[in-house]
């Protein structure tokens, strides 16, 4: 019983972090229907940048994320303008290929700069914990989870309350109509892409003190974030959060009751199962856009 409770706590905490890592992807994949195969690479790039700030200036990774956000947003803007915008017009399939190529190039640069060794940041809270009777809540996970909630809520509010948020919703639901009322989908697209890329700063910061990382883990994180977005259902930020928690709990239960090695297979297995039985995702309603299944 204590095992189960502990597994659930770990699962929920890690799940929130997964959702945080996937926020960028649920904006690009979910809202713009662009599969950004560089999500894992953006994430791990943010992680290394946070790592560098922590290593050289002793800056806490979470605080570092607010700085890292800026170059990441700029990177997102450049990638959108140079790659995504022109390829989406020719063939969306090429965007997938090109962003994946970008991920490989980013991985190569990270490996050339920081080498292939495993790295981690360890701020003071990284090995502290709160004890609730027999149950343990690790502080690092808890802070990362809080960060996930804050970022998710902030993004949700931004989408629901701001002009840009409305423009994003409009452009994704009806590009023609949006254009008629003066919202240029291409420009909105650039903004979403920049925000999505910037948001990897926070996921990357959490990653830096929760996991050891190397440049070649980018494709693992890509697979994981794709799983979160697909299981949650495209375009739904709360759905992505629910899916993250579900993945986290399933993984944590698998670790506790089966083996830690099978836990790594959970996200991929889950995505295959979900696409087979409920391709629109677990936490979405079927809407009119989903015709043609």
């Amino acid at each position: 019983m204590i095992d189960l409770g502990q597994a659930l706590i770990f699962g929920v905490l890690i799940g929130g972090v997964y959702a945080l890592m996937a926020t960028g992807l649920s904006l690009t994949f979910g809202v713009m229907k662009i599969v950004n195969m560089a999500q894992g690479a953006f994430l791990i790039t943010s992680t290394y940048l946070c790592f560098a700030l922590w290593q050289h200036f002793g800056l806490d990774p979470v605080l570092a994320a607010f700085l890292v956000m800026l170059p990441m947003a700029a990177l997102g803007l450049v990638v959108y303008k140079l790659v995504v915008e022109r390829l989406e017009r020719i063939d969306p399939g090429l965007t997938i290929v090109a962003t994946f190529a970008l991920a490989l190039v980013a991985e190569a640069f990270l490996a050339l700069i920081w080498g292939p060794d495993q790295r981690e940041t360890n701020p003071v809270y990284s090995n502290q914990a709160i004890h609730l009777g027999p149950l343990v809540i690790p502080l690092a996970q808890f802070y990362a989870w809080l960060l996930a909630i804050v970022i998710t809520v902030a993004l949700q509010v931004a989408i629901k309350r701001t002009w840009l948020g409305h423009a994003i919703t409009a452009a994704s639901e009806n590009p023609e109509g949006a254009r008629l009322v003066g919202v240029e989908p291409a420009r909105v697209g650039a903004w979403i892409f920049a925000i999505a890329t910037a948001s990897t700063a926070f996921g990357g910061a959490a990653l830096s003190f929760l996991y050891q990382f190397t440049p070649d883990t980018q494709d693992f994180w890509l697979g994981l974030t794709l799983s979160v977005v697909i299981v949650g259902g495209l375009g739904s930020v709360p759905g992505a959060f629910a899916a993250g928690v579900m993945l986290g709990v399933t993984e944590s239960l698998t670790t506790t009751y089966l083996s830690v090695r099978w836990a790594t297979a959970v996200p991929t297995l889950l995505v295959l199962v979900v696409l087979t039985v409920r391709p629109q995702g677990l936490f979405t309603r079927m809407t009119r856009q989903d015709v043609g299944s």
Partner: protein
Amino acid sequence: MTPLTWLTPLRRAWIPIAVAALISYPLVSDDIYYQNMLIMTFLLAIGASGWNIMGGYAGYLSLGNSAFIGLGAYTTGILAANEHISPFLGCLVGGLTCAVGAALLSLVTRRTRGMYFVVVTFAALQLLGVVATIWSSLTGGSQGLAMPLPTWSLSYQDWPFYYSLLGLLVVTVAVSAWVRRGKLGLGLFAIQDNEDKAAGLGLRTDLYKMIAFVLSGTFLGIAGGIYAYYVTFLNTAAVFDIITSVLIVLAVLLGGRGTLWGPVLGAFIIAPVSNLTSTGFGGADAGAFRLLLFGGLLGVVAIFLPRGVLPVLQSWWRRLGRGSGRTPALAGPDRSRTAGSVSAVGGDSVDGRDPSPALVVRGLRKSFGGLRAVDGVDLDLGRGQITGLIGPNGSGKTTLFNIIDGTVPTRNGTITLGGRRLERAGRPVRAHAGLARTYQLPRLFANLTVVENLVVPERRFAFGRLWTKRVNSAERERGLGVLDDLGLVAYADSSPTDLSYGQRKLVELAQVLWLDPILVMLDEPAAGISPALSERLAELIRSLRERGVAILLVEHDLAFIAGLCEQVYVMANGAIIANGPVAEISADRTVIDAYLGDSVVPVRSGGQA
């Protein structure tokens, strides 16, 4: 995609010469370095040609095809280690395993489109890598799996690997050519253009894609088995490496996606480069430099050379003026002759059909969120009857079409076509049962010629038929007859993009009639076309009625409706608010209020068009 007609004379001569040169190479040179380089080139070319069947023909990109190498390699390796089966036999089992794996993955993607396929193949590659590592009792896990050592004399060098892979490459390219020239290729290119439309024309798109993906994987799986024997040692990290997938995609994109020889050409460029880098780059950063090189190349090709080398060369050649002559000089929408007999359209007369009503719809309902788009609709359409469906924009007409043809699923209500219940059936089944539909904006397949567009519909799925010619002589003759009636015979072998809007509408109608349907649903057929074409269209519709075909017509042009329809249904807010003869309907007060508004004078029926 056009066949490489300009290459034909060259191809006839050069292909046998190239194959002969490759066959004789090991006999005349004992340079093991180049022999090994060619072995890796063959492996990549097999992978690229296979990938192209799914990625180039059907348009479904995969980033996980190196999984097939891994699956084939491990199957062969495990059979050799545990059962002492020769790897040259074991690799066939490896190919079979890959075929089954590909079929299973196709089931996963059966209900999804385009971009999910990438995710699924990527996930499958990751999953296989993880499983192979965990299941160490079978695969040796991260320790690796040693293959038996070759038993032949050293003086034969790597000939058995060389020749078996060369032979497999020839087979793969031959199969790819066969697919391309057959009905299977026709269907796959149609799927690439518009999968929903293809399904609506009766193509079992799920099976087409499954066969394409199985072919993609099988040959690469066999090659993987041979590769396993060749490298003599398997470890999960190397065999399931995503970089192999990247090289495959890079070779296809560089050479020319969708072409027959592009992937082979690409492989003969990329594999030697890859070979050079793996021997040339040294030190701790070698891996990073390789990643940088191939990631960079892939990005550059995707952004600056998206069509690939071969198609670009081809269009340069055309611009030189030697390969032209495809596009007819005819232009203008109305070079069409006056409407002749349309007997060729739709083939045999349907007089002998059973007398059950063409379409009976009861209680059809569909909500999107809180909006009731279609709210309890009943329809009765007799054979040989033209029925109009009118209503204000947003009243649910197109949604009703989409529900009847299966584009939008619903749980409520029944659809009976010619006595067959269809509300649960998939789109191809509905097309097979005799349901045809055109779109408000015509949707023709740009990858196919006009005559190919006509013959692509399928009344039933037959495996054997997939391997026959794209357009056989009987179909071509019938197709040309139809085009002749439409005055479009000069465009038979051009792309439908060369046609005017109105002409495309006519061709789309002729296309769906190829299904020999019981019911044809036309979504605003007369919108935006010239009066002359609209007249021809009306004539065509009447001739269909004479042959017993039922027609359901959504149209805003009330004169067009009045001139054609015996019966009219009026829709408003998702419900049928009136139905009856045109004269009765146009006098109906509720209809005028709902549809026309107060200020509009009703159109007098009869007499027009």
